[in-house]
């Protein structure tokens, strides 16, 4: 039995809609990811080992490592419109958590609302997919997931990447904000385009500089 590196990637999918959960699960499994689906933001946080009442003090470690989480989560993909905790709320909680903020988060929505999209990107979402999500969208997850590869697999590449960047992890948020402003600008130009897929692709064109990814680590999407 061959062990592919992809089989180690685990995606947590959050959506209150049953059909959409089924669909995203199939899409992710087709792409050889391990998948866990939950139907709410609360359940997602529980799965990630975060407890609501721990959020008040960000200095206190709010994640119980490994005791609650049996499998590492490499990416979280969540619907935006959910009752109670929205996908945006969930995104914020994840980014506020010292242990979870490095997990890439992708937002899905059935509505193309530019202000919603930019708000999510500004809050740290890696991508914003319009529903219904398709295989082409899931293919874009790869570079984001790769950056959370288990250390023993990609340790050398990780070190090289840091050398090339010349800056520690915590400074990359400024970079990310710049990139997201560029991305937002692209999306604003394109949101009137009726072809949503084209809009997203042009908004995330390869010539947008993303120092974390353009050093040959990722394959062309």
């Amino acid at each position: 039995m061959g062990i592919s590196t992809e089989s180690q990637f685990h995606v947590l999918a959050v959506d209150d809609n049953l059909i959409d959960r089924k669909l995203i699960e199939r899409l992710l499994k087709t792409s050889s990811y391990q998948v866990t689906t939950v139907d709410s933001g609360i359940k997602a946080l529980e799965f990630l080992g975060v407890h609501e009442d721990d959020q008040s003090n960000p200095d206190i470690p709010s994640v119980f490592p490994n005791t609650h989480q049996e499998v590492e989560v490499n990416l979280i993909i969540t619907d935006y419109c959910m009752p109670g905790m929205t996908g945006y709320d969930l995104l914020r909680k994840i980014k506020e958590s010292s242990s979870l903020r490095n997990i890439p988060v992708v937002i899905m929505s059935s509505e193309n609302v530019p202000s919603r999209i930019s708000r999510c990107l500004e809050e740290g979402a890696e991508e914003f997919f319009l529903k219904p999500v398709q295989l082409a969208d899931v293919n874009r997850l790869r570079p984001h997931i790769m950056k959370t590869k288990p250390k023993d697999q990609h340790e050398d590449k990780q070190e090289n990447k840091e050398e090339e960047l010349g800056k520690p992890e915590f400074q990359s948020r400024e970079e990310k904000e710049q990139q997201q402003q560029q991305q937002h600008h692209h999306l604003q130009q394109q949101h009137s385009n009726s072809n949503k897929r084209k809009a997203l692709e042009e908004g995330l064109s390869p010539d947008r500089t993303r120092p974390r990814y353009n050093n040959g680590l990722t394959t062309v999407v």
Partner: protein
Amino acid sequence: MDKNHLQRQLEMKRSLLDQGYLDEQFIQLEELEDGDNPNFVEETVTTFYANSARLLQNIEQALGSRPIDFTALDNCMHQFKSSSTSIGATRVKKECTLFMEYCEAANAEGCIRTFRQVKQEHASLKTKLENYFKLARQGGTSAGGHAGRS
């Protein structure tokens, strides 16, 4: 695999697409079928119809209450529309969109009238898809053309 059946299956699908009952999303679902998941489309559609029956009932009830809670209606329909979109049910989706516009305008009559259309399209598509899957089974293939059934 019966060539005749496959041909008829493809023609039926073409017809459903041309008439706007289904769209590209349905094709996307079929592309997700493989040897390990040969019946994904039919399973998803079955789940859709099982699930949507409940949603439609909730909407029916909400439309019957006075005063009408348009926010609750909108939320319910949003769910239903989302599911319909995900299986590629174009006509159903269009009626849903119209319904939600009436909700936003708090137009009760518009909602009631449009809901009849929603139910009609929903039922109509169900029959057509049942025929489609039946044909696929008879031909020894699943909806996506995979020989997954014995």
